[in-house]
């Protein structure tokens, strides 16, 4: 006789994301994952500034990319267009003290110290996929807080339909800003409902510790269902706007980089396919991973785009 043990397993039950685990288990899993590579970095996570933060919602149970790979391969054109050089050049950035200027369609504009923002917004850990427009990806345990919680404190008015973020600008420090590669300072933006979505977060740390400078310290955006360039680094200004802001990469090549930039394997970049991605840290014999629509967060975010032609609004 056949013994049926499980009936009707929902696909959502066997995917990783719905499984939440404790911090300790994560550390163990992460340590086991990197054991073969003998990297000490994850050991540091337990003693880092954010070693004991709680695991937040939406955190996925995924094999985390080695910290060395996440911290050693960064697109940070403010310092260099070379992903390795930027990790070294970013050391010159001073992240303390840090303040964020809030302007535009909000009742409580002003200049806020990062410390005060952090007092109001308790941090948690979320393991998210991160998919670059260049068709590589990684899985990062970010430390941060929901973007929407912070924005609500500034009391955006009904005119606030979009939010614009601006990166720190100083070519003396950010040596890449001396070149005309992009129109500095770097600007990114979200529609207000995207910004208020609970998946969108402001990150201040990763791997249980503060953000390395090359990864966008002290404050960066993380929008896991969009290509990495939306997740702007070293934010100094937030503006609530009625109209869609002009963003850095869109300005650079409007035909290639849309404002929405949602991860979508069905919409290729004009110059390369987006159907697959190279997972960082994997062996050279590993197959590329099939890219998921909205980077695997479709169930959560698809409602934001109902009725929209995603091929047109790419």
């Amino acid at each position, binding site marked *: 006789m056949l013994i049926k043990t499980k009936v009707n397993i929902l696909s959502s039950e066997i995917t990783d994301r719905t499984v939440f685990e404790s911090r300790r288990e994560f550390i163990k899993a992460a340590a086991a994952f990197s054991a073969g590579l003998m990297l000490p970095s994850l050991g540091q996570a337990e003693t880092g500034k954010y070693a004991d933060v709680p695991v937040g919602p939406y955190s996925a149970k995924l094999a985390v990319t080695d910290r060395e790979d996440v911290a050693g391969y960064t697109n940070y054109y403010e310092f260099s*267009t070379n*992903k390795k050089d930027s990790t070294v050049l970013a050391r010159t950035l001073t992240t303390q003290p840090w303040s964020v200027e809030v302007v535009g369609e909000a009742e409580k504009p002003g200049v806020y110290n990062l410390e005060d923002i952090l007092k109001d917004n308790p941090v948690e850990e979320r393991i998210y996929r991160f998919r670059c427009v260049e068709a590589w990806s990684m899985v990062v345990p970010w430390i941060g807080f929901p973007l929407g919680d912070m924005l609500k404190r500034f009391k955006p008015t009904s005119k606030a339909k979009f939010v614009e973020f601006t990166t720190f600008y100083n070519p003396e420090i950010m040596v890449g800003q001396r070149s005309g590669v992009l129109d500095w300072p770097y600007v990114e933006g979200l529609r207000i409902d995207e910004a208020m979505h609970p998946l969108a977060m402001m990150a201040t740390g990763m791997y249980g510790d503060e953000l390395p400078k090359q990864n966008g310290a002290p404050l960066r955006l993380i929008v896991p269902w969009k290509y990495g360039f939306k997740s702007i680094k070293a934010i100094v200004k937030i503006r609530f706007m009625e109209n869609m802001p002009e963003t850095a990469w869109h300005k650079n090549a409007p035909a290639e980089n849309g404002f929405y930039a949602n991860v979508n394997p069905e919409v290729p970049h004009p*110059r390369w396919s987006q159907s*697959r991605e190279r997972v960082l840290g994997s062996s050279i014999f590993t197959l590329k991973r099939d890219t998921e629509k909205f980077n695997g967060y479709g169930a959560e975010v698809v409602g934001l785009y109902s009725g929209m032609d995603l091929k047109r609004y790419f």
Partner: protein
Amino acid sequence: MLVGKKGWAGIKVTVFLLSLLPFGLLVNDGINDQLGANPIETLHFGFGDWALRFLCMGLALTPIKIITGQSWPMRFRRMIGLFVFFYASLHLLIFIAFDLSLSWEAFKDEVPKSPYILMGLLTYSLLIPLAVTSTKNMQKRLGRNWIKLHRLVYIAGLTALIHYFWLVKADYTEPLIYAAVISILLAIRIVVHCRKTRKLSLRDRSRVVISSDRACVSTEHSVVKMQVLRHCVESLRNSAAYPLLLGMQRVKQDGWGRRKH
């Protein structure tokens, strides 16, 4: 040159081993897990860069001969050319074997969507006949046609540059450097070619002038010289390399970075 046959053999072996060095270093990094977060990209870009560098070296031999009168570097032309093919082959192999994981499905999906990959494949297909006909035997058999055929390397140089320009996201510094080098190397050939053709017509005209009035010859000479110069500038301007040079000038005006403080 006071180097004997044995001496040349020794030098050739040395150059051969030096040319293999970039390959050895990348393989060594691979064995020691030093290729960074994206090892396939490191290998793929590394081999591509070296293919382009050897192409520049190969294209530099004739200009060296023209400018310095030294023809001994030409002895390495075949070897350098074959190293272009060697590194280009590795570049392509890494792409097909590891980036596409030998999957025909992936090839069908990714390659047609990507103009720069198509341009890379075109460049490689231009190099194949050159590598195949690189032997002394083939050189003899093809005779004059061999020279004509091997002019394809100029086209390959230009398509390789386009391949590079098309894959870059925003920072054109590196492809511009290669474009400048290749443009100069090709421009020297154009100038020499122009001079040669003009010299012939100059001789014809001079003969007529000499018979009538000797004093006129020098005037005629300088007029023709001016014409030659103008012609060279014009042909350079009409060549495919010129927009690239212009582009570089523009970037320089905009200020392209590290060099400009």
